[in-house]
């Protein structure tokens, strides 16, 4: 049985990445937060020993629930109604020195195809291996790896290669 301190640490460590992924899966901040909360609870309840669930399981649950929600007409309508406010939430850390870079990455990520965006997010900010990503997205590991590489290339194009290279 996990101690409460373990859970607090787990939440603090993984909540940013989970919420980032949920924000990309849902176009409404409220839905994203609900997705994370319900996925964490569901994944936790699947753990027989009460230990914190593996992040890959929570990411997979978020994605599955987002798909289920997307099939609901009511929720879809609500999302569309709230879509105008979607850009108000910043996906990435927006401290003073990184604000421009964060906005640049977010805009590029938003333009990225969903298949690439999922893999890039899970690998870069979720810390998952390709095998875990394959399990979460129900795709072959080789596909996950190739999508990651293509996704990075597309992302760099979208961010403007010259400007980006100069900034490194």
């Amino acid at each position, binding site marked *: *049985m996990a101690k409460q301190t373990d859970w607090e640490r787990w*939440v603090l460590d993984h909540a*940013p990445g989970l919420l980032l992924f949920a924000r990309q899966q849902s176009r409404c901040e409220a839905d994203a*937060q609900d997705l994370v909360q319900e996925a964490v609870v569901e994944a936790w309840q699947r753990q027989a020993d*009460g230990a914190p669930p593996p992040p890959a399981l929570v990411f997979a649950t978020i994605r599955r629930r987002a798909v289920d929600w997307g099939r609901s007409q009511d929720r879809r309508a609500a999302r569309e109604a709230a879509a105008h406010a979607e850009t108000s939430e910043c996906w990435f*850390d927006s401290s003073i020195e*990184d604000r421009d870079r964060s906005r640049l990455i977010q805009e590029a990520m938003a333009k990225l195809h969903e298949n690439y965006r999922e893999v*890039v997010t899970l690998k870069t900010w979720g810390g998952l291996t390709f095998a875990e990503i394959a399990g979460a997205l129900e795709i072959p590991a080789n596909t996950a790896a190739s999508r990651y590489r293509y996704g990075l290339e597309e*992302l760099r194009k979208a961010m403007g290669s010259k400007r980006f290279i100069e900034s*490194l």
Partner: protein
Amino acid sequence: MNDNELERFEAHLRSVGPARPPAGFLERLKSETMALVAERRAQTAIAAPPAQPERTTAPELFAWSSWLSLVLRWLVPATAVLVVGGIIWRANLPVGRGPETAGTPVRADDVRIDQQLVSTFDTVELLPSGEPVRFRCREWMDEVVLRDSRRGVEVARRVPRVDVTPVPFETY
């Protein structure tokens, strides 16, 4: 993009971490998980089973029933085949050589009855009134022979018999 550029780009992306979740959401998530942890602890404490004798677990029961169903699946047709085979085997047995011949009665096709007089003698005894009485005694040997020529069986029985006849004195 070559591998070197790819690694630099990855490092660049990682240097910008995900946005910190809103404080209200973090608190809600933490309190939700804490409540679940407490609830699970309570359930574990209540559901902690006392020491019990060894019981068959569900997987063991499943394995046992699987094994049993496998055995029954083969046992039933095998039994049917054995029964049918037995019936055919008994039907094809030569007459008189089957196990049932031991139980069938002997059919005697030759019966001989013989009486042989072994000895004869007279004796005189006195009645309580003092009157003398003569008895003629004959010892016989009765013999019965039964023969079942088909099975080659012969049964012989010999029984001794004593015939005592009072004889009046007047006959003399």
